[in-house]
């Protein structure tokens, strides 16, 4: 029923002619209306991917479409908040919001933007340069929401915030997104804060998509098993560790498991960490449409 918010096809980006690939062979599809977390270690390519979606970088190869068209065509319909929350330091908060209304004619929702600022007990006449990290993030989010985006791209939105401000802003963000049906794509390396907020996951490691799909389907496709050391064929083993004769492994079951294994469903953190620790694990991309996973049991990277 829903459309596509973002779709990448073999997207690749290399910095410099003979430089390292920051992104390679990225293929995924994100349905509209979802809240997607892009996770991965530092330098994995999360920011590069978001900058492509915001039309700030040109792909070296492949394509990335946003809201069914190119990022340049969709410029009016998405909002982007970069990692260091760039704002003009010489402007006041009120002037920053005025800038949003001047640069987004016909789209600007003054009430939404002002409410986000007011909820943070910020005086509109405060200069941006005097704001703390959390207040700055709040103003950047107000500017983004004032645009009434269909797609909100957030690069590490909560990175430099204390836990209280993080919790408060995450709540505000989710409430606004839910109210307006905004698709949210945010990168983060704080996995805990994403578990409740997100319904889609895109795990990027070393410039490649490692896991992609609806969060519950991804979790359901994996099993955490413990038992005596034994064969795990024909299942796909993502990561296994042996303590004495005890073996703990995260696997993607392919058929029924033997009874000797104790099984639990992994948490998001366990899923992500296991994949980050074993870069050789096969890629898994699930889509929300087919109720039955998996669409592809990809080949090894």
């Amino acid at each position, binding site marked *: 029923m829903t459309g596509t918010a973002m779709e990448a096809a073999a997207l690749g980006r290399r910095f410099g002619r003979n430089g390292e690939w920051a992104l390679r062979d990225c293929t995924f599809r994100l349905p509209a209306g979802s809240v997607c977390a892009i996770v991965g270690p530092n330098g994995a390519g999360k920011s590069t991917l978001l900058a492509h979606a915001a039309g700030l970088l040109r792909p070296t190869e492949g394509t990335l479409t946003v809201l069914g068209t190119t990022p340049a065509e969709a410029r009016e319909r*998405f909002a982007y908040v970069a990692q260091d929350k760039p704002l003009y330091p010489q402007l006041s908060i009120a002037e920053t919001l005025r800038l949003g209304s001047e640069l987004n004619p016909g789209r600007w929702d003054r009430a939404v933007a002002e409410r986000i600022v007011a909820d943070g007990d910020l005086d509109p006449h405060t200069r941006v340069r005097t704001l703390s990290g959390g207040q700055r993030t709040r103003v950047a989010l107000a500017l983004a929401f004032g645009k009434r985006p269909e797609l909100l791209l957030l690069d590490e939105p909560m990175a430099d915030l204390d836990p209280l401000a993080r919790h408060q802003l995450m709540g505000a963000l989710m409430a606004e997104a839910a109210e307006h049906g905004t698709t949210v794509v945010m990168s983060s390396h704080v996995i805990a804060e994403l578990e409740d907020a997100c319904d889609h996951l895109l795990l990027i490691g070393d410039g490649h998509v490692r896991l992609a799909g609806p969060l519950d389907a991804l979790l359901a496709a994996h099993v955490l098993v413990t038992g005596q050391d034994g064969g795990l064929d024909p299942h796909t083993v993502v990561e296994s560790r042996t303590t004495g004769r005890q073996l703990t492994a995260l696997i993607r079951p392919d058929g029924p498991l033997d009874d000797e294994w104790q099984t639990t469903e992994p948490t998001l953190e366990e899923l992500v960490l296991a994949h980050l620790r074993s870069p050789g694990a096969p890629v898994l991309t699930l889509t929300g449409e087919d109720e039955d996973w998996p669409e592809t049991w990809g080949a090894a990277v």
Partner: protein
Amino acid sequence: MTAMTTAPAEAPTLRRSLRPRGLVWTMLCLHRAALLFWALLAAVAAGTLLWAWGPGTKGVWTEYRTMRCAFPGENLSCDYTGDAYMALDLATSLGGGIITIVPFLVAAWASGALIARELETGTAELAWTQSVSPTRWLAAKLAVPAALLASGTALLMLLHRLMWPSDRELLRWLSRQWYDDVAFRGNGPVAVAYALLGLAVGVLVGLLVRRSLPALGISLVCLLAVHFALGMLRPYLWPSVTLTKTDQYSISGGMPVDDGAITPLGNRVPNPCGGEGPDCLTQHHIVGFYFDYHPSSHFWPLQLVETGIVLSLAALAVLASFRLLNRHLGDAA
């Protein structure tokens, strides 16, 4: 009666439609300090030039007369300069100096504050992810300052021309020539052209270097190079007039281009004799002297050619800026 009832309704509508919007508003709001500085600088220069035109010139004439310089013949008292002379000299230099220095101030500001700082801090990307394409963003960054600069320097140039003494005798006494570098830059459209070139060079260097401080330095060096190169080339931008004579006393009254001696075959050689007697000339087979110069009637052709060159350079820099932005962002620009 209808006019009376509609008038109050029209006034706010008109004000609203004249209110700067979108990128123009953004430019004016973000660079209020620079705008204020430019307004103050232009006001100081305009005030100085107006003073020089009115009270300054009048005072100098009075001084000229009381010092009895106007009488023919030797008059040693005119070798000294009075207070009015000093004041006018200072005002003229200040007014012309501001016009000359504006392009450099513009280049420094444009490369640093206007472009590189935005790229450095990421606020450019903030603007590009509003509903404004980077191409329009760059167009506004060029057009708004260009309009304010062109109108301001054009006004200062006209005031400089107004102030510039039309009387030859006064010019001689002030020992100023129409082809003096500062006077030439202040008296014609090259003033506007150089200000626009400063903006274009600043924007291009800012986009290339992407860091404020290096961009500021590099743009100043680039502009200085153009400034001096064209200053050196100026005498050759229009065909000069040649004067030949048999004695070696040089003439004055124009912009000198070249001078020297002529051999019997008509070749031009450097004058080998300097101030020595006629024996030297015979010894070196010198039959005459030549002097290439620009009479004051060449002022406008020289102005227009130099303006054309400077504006072409500015246009090239603007073109390069857009291409650079395009290459960086692809179709997103």
